[in-house]
C-alpha cells in the first residue's frame, strides 16, 4: 500500500482520533484509499468514517452471544459431511498426507505424534532458483541407509561368517556422500566388529569374544545384516523421503518432520519453511506460531474437502487451545477436562473421578458456566439470561 497518500492517511487518523473511534489499522488505510479513489471532500470523508464506524460496531459480536457453541456447531456440522477418505494425493504428487476427518480430529486432539508429518522447505533469496543447491540440500535432509547405496545386495558368507558390503561409487556420488565417511560412521556404530576395506568393498565380521564363546551363530550374522542394511549414513533425524519440486521457486517436500534441525541448515528461508506438525511448531517457534498453525491446518483440511468455515470460528478454536501458553486438546485431557466447574467436568467425561476429587478437596462450584446452570435448572448466563436487574443506590 505504498501508493497511498500519507497526507490523506494522516487526515483520516486525525478524524478517527477526534471521534474517539477504535479502528483496526487496515481500516484506516482502506478508507484513505477510498477517499482518494472517490475524490471525497473533507465533509464526505467524515460522514464515511462515521458510517464505517456504525457498520463496524454493528458487526461486532454482542456480549452474551454464545460464540463457543456457534463455533463448535460451525466446525462440527461440516465435519459430519466429511468423507472418511483418509489418504489423498493432494498438493504434492506421490506424497501421502492425512486429510479429511482424521486430520481434523488430529488437529483438535493436539496429538504429539501425527500420522503423516510433512514439511515444506523453502530457500532464501540466494538459492531460490539454484537447482543444484536444492538437490544438495535434499540429499542432506533425506534419510539414506546403506541399502540405498549398495552396488548389488549384501553378500553373506556363512562359511567365513562375515558380511560383504559393496558400495556403489555412482550412487554415493549422486547423493553427495563420501566413502570414507560412510566407513567411519559404520565403524563408530559397530564397535565389536572387524573391518576389512578393499576398494569399495567393506567386509564386516563380528569379533570373537567372551560373549560369543559358542562361536558366531547364523542368527548373529542375520541380525548384523539387518543392522547394516538399515544403518542411516546421512540425513536429518525423523525425515525419511524428500521430494524436490519447482513451483515458482525450488521447494522441498518431506515425509517426516524435523523443523528444528532443518531451520539450522544453511540457505533455508526460515520464515517460509514450515511443517504440518503443530506440536513441533510450538516447541520450536512458540505458542503464537502454534496458534497460527492450528488455524492454517484446520482451514486447509476443511477447504480441501470443499467446505467453507468462517475463519473466526477456527480462530476461536485455536485461541481456546493455545490460551494458556501450551497447546491443549479439546477433550478430556484438555479444555473440557480443565474447566473450573466440577459439575461441568463431571457432566463431560469421567464423572466419578471428578466428583470424588472435588469432594476430597472440598471444591466450590460457583455456577457461572452454562452446563452447571442447565444441570441445576437455572437460566443460563448467556443471551437473554445474561441480563439482570440492579437496584439504584441512592
Amino acid at each position, binding site marked *: 500500500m505504498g501508493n497511498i497518500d500519507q497526507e490523506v492517511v494522516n487526515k483520516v487518523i486525525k478524524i478517527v482520533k477526534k471521534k474517539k473511534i477504535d479502528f483496526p489499522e487496515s481500516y484506516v488505510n482502506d478508507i484513505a484509499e477510498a477517499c482518494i479513489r472517490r475524490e471525497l471532500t473533507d465533509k464526505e470523508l467524515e460522514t464515511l468514517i462515521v458510517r464505517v464506524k456504525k457498520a463496524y460496531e454493528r458487526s461486532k459480536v454482542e456480549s452474551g452471544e*454464545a460464540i463457543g457453541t456457534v463455533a463448535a456447531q460451525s466446525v462440527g456440522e461440516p465435519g459430519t459431511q466429511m468423507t472418511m477418505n483418509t489418504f489423498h494425493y493432494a498438493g504434492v504428487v506421490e506424497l501421502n498426507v492425512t486429510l479429511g476427518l482424521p486430520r481434523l480430529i488430529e488437529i483438535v486432539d493436539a496429538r504429539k505424534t501425527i500420522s503423516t508429518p510433512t514439511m515444506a522447505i523453502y530457500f532464501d533469496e540466494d538459492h531460490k532458483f539454484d537447482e543444484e543447491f536444492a538437490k544438495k540440500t535434499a540429499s542432506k535432509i533425506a534419510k539414506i541407509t546403506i541399502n540405498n547405496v549398495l552396488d548389488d545386495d549384501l553378500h553373506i558368507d556363512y562359511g567365513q561368517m562375515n558380511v560383504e558390503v559393496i558400495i556403489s561409487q555412482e550412487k554415493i556420488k549422486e547423493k553427495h556422500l563420501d566413502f570414507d565417511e560412510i566407513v567411519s560412521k559404520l565403524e563408530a556404530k559397530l564397535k565389536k566388529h572387524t573391518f576389512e576395506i578393499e576398494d569399495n568393498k567393506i567386509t564386516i565380521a563380528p569379533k570373537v569374544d567372551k560373549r560369543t564363546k559358542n562361536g558366531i551363530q547364523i542368527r548373529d550374522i542375520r541380525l548384523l545384516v539387518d543392522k547394516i542394511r538399515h544403518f542411516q549414513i546421512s540425513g536429518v533425524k525423523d525425515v525419511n523421503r524428500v521430494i524436490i519440486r519447482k513451483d515458482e521457486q525450488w521447494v522441498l517436500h518431506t515425509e517426516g518432520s524435523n523443523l528444528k534441525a532443518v531451520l539450522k541448515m544453511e540457505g533455508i528461508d526460515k520464515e517460509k519453511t514450515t511443517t504440518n506438525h503443530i506440536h513441533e511448531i510450538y516447541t520450536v517457534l512458540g505458542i503464537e506460531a502454534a496458534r497460527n498453525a492450528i488455524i492454517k491446518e484446520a482451514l486447509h483440511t476443511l477447504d480441501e474437502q470443499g467446505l467453507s468455515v468462517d475463519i473466526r470460528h477456527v480462530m476461536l478454536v485455536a485461541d481456546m487451545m493455545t490460551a494458556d501458553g501450551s497447546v491443549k486438546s479439546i477433550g478430556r485431557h484438555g479444555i473440557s477436562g480443565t474447566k473450573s466447574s466440577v459439575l461441568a467436568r463431571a457432566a463431560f467425561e469421567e464423572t466419578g473421578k471428578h466428583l470424588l476429587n472435588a*469432594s476430597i478437596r472440598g471444591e466450590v462450584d460457583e455456577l457461572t458456566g452454562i452446563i452447571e446452570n442447565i444441570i441445576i435448572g437455572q437460566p443460563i448466563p448467556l443471551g*437473554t439470561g445474561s441480563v439482570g436487574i440492579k437496584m439504584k443506590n441512592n
Partner: protein
Amino acid sequence: MNSTKIYMNGELIGVCENPEEFVTEMREKRRSGQISEEMNITYYDKTSEIYIFNDPGRARRPLIIVKNGIPLLEDEHIQEITEGKLKWDDLIVNGIIEYLDAEEEENSYIAMGINDLNEDHTHLEIDPSTMLGICAGIIPFSNHNSSPRNTMEAGMTKQALGLYVSNYMHRTDTRAHLLHQPQTPMVKTRIIDATDYDKRPSGQNFVVAVMSFEGYNMEDALILNKSSLERGLARSSFFRSYETFERKYPGGQEDKFEVPGKGVRGYRSENAYRHLDEDGIINSESYVESGDVLIGKTSPPRFLEEIDEFGSANEKRRETSVTVRNGEKGIVDAVLLTETVEGSKLTKIRVRDTRQPEFGDKFASRHGQKGVVGLILSQEDVPFTENGVVPDLIVNPHAIPSRMSVGQVLEMVAGKSGCIKGERVDGTPFNLDIESEIRNFLTDNGFEPNGCESLYNGMTGERIEAEIFIGVAYYQKLHHMTTDKMYARSRGPVQVLTKQPTEGRAREGGLRFGEMERDCLIAHGAALALKERLLDESDKYEAIVCGKCGMLSVHDKIRNKIYCPICGEVDSFPVEISYAFKLLLDELKSLCVFPKLILEDKA
C-alpha cells in the same frame, strides 16, 4: 519340507506332499459319489494350505462342471429333464452339476455363458442371474440399476406386506400384516419362478405415471388415486394377538377370568368392560379401541393380610385385565380358548384392523424407489390418457436420473407391453435382447416405443403439453404406516426415579429434547426458552434448602413445620431445581459426599 497343511472345518488334521493331486482326487470322489456332495475343498498355493469344509451354514450355489472346455450338461440331459425322466438330484449324483461354497469358488474359473467357454474354465454358470439371492433376484432388469439401488431394494423387499403365510387364519402372531388381494408381478424374473414368489406375492401392479403434479410429489412423495384405493388397492390388514392365562400362585390361589367387580383394586370404568361376556372374555367381531378390556382378569392380592382402616384383614383382589394397546383399535378377529402345559386356562385374542393407504404410508417399487404418500387424489382430478386410462400412482421424474434406476423405466415399459399382450413379461437380469422386443411390440400396437403418452389434465381437461411416461410397475406397500407412528403429547406419565417424562410412543412418552437441540437454544441465547424445556416442562422441583448447612430441609406436612435434619428449626428457603439434580445430590450423599448448596439472593 514344504508340506501342505490340511484343515478340516478349521482344524488342522494333517499334511500332504502333492496338494494338486490330492485336491483333484477329492473332487473326483465327490463327483462320483464316493464322498458326500456337501464337501467342499480349496487349495491355496500361496500359503500351502488346503481347506476342507463339510459343516452346515455355508452358502453354496450350483454350477455346471466343465471338462476341457466342454460343459458336462448336454442337450440329452435337458431333453430328459423336460420329459421328466431326469431330476435335479440326478444331475448332482451323476456329477454334472455341483455346489461350490465361497472358498472353493476361489479355485475355480467360471464362465458366464456358453459362448465365453475356453480350455481353462472349470465351471459354467447355469444362468448369470443365479448369482443373485432371493431378495435381489426379485428385481427385474437389476443389471440396469445402480448398485446402491439394488442393495436398498434387497433390504426393502423384506419390509413389504404380502401373503406372508397361507395359514394366517389359524395363527396368533403377536403382530402380522396381510396385504389384501396381492398380485403376481407383471414383470417377473426366473428367480421369482424358482422361489415360488408367485405363490406368496408381496405387492400389486400399479399403473404409474411419471410426472410432477402440483408439487405434491416433491422429494419422493407419491400421489395415489383415491378411487383405486377405494377399489382395494394397497389395502392391508393388521393383526395383533393378545394372550394371558390364569396363573397359579403358591398357596393355592390363582387368577380368574371374570368381569371384575367394582370392589377390585384398580377397577377401570364400567365402559371399559362393556364388551366382555359372562366368562370375562370378549366376543369376536366386537369393535374395540385403546383401553378397552379384551380379557377381564383378577389376581389375588400381592401381600396377604392387608389390614384396612378397621383393623380386619381384607382380601382385595387386583385387576390384571388385558386391554387394547394404546393408540390401536380394531375388530376382534378370533378368540381362542385353550390351556397351558400346567393346565391353566389360556386365552388368545386376535384383533384385526383394516389399513387403507393414507398420508405418510410408505411404498416402494422394486428398484429402491421408495416414497411416502403425499396426496390422495380423487380419480376425476387425476390426469388420464387418450384411451381413458387413469394412473393409480404419480411419481416425480426427479426420482429417476440422479439415482440411475433404469430398471424401473424398463419395468414400466415391459409391464405396459405385457398388459397389452395379456401375458407376463420376463425381466430376468442379463437377458440382453428384451428391450428391442418390447419397443417393437409397443410400436406394433400403436404406442410410442418409449412408453410416453399424451395425458389430459383431470381438472381442466386440457392436454398436458409434455408427453408423460406411463407404464405398469409392481409396487410394494412397506410396513411403515402413519397410524403406527403418529404421536403427540402435552401432559402424561413421568418416570418414578427422575420424575422426567417417560420415553416412547408406547409409554405415552415425551418428545425428547436432546443434546443437540439444547445446543441450538444455547447458540441462540434463548436462556429462558431453554429453561422452560429442560425444567418447567420436565422435572421441575421445589427443594427447601437449609440456609445454615446447605442441605435439603424436611417439610413435615402433619405439623406444617420445616426443619433441617442437621441444624433443626432454622431458616430454610425454597429453591427451584430440577428433580434430576436433587437426585444427584441424594446419590452423592449415599456415597458419603456432602454437597452443600450455598444460597445467595438472585441478582
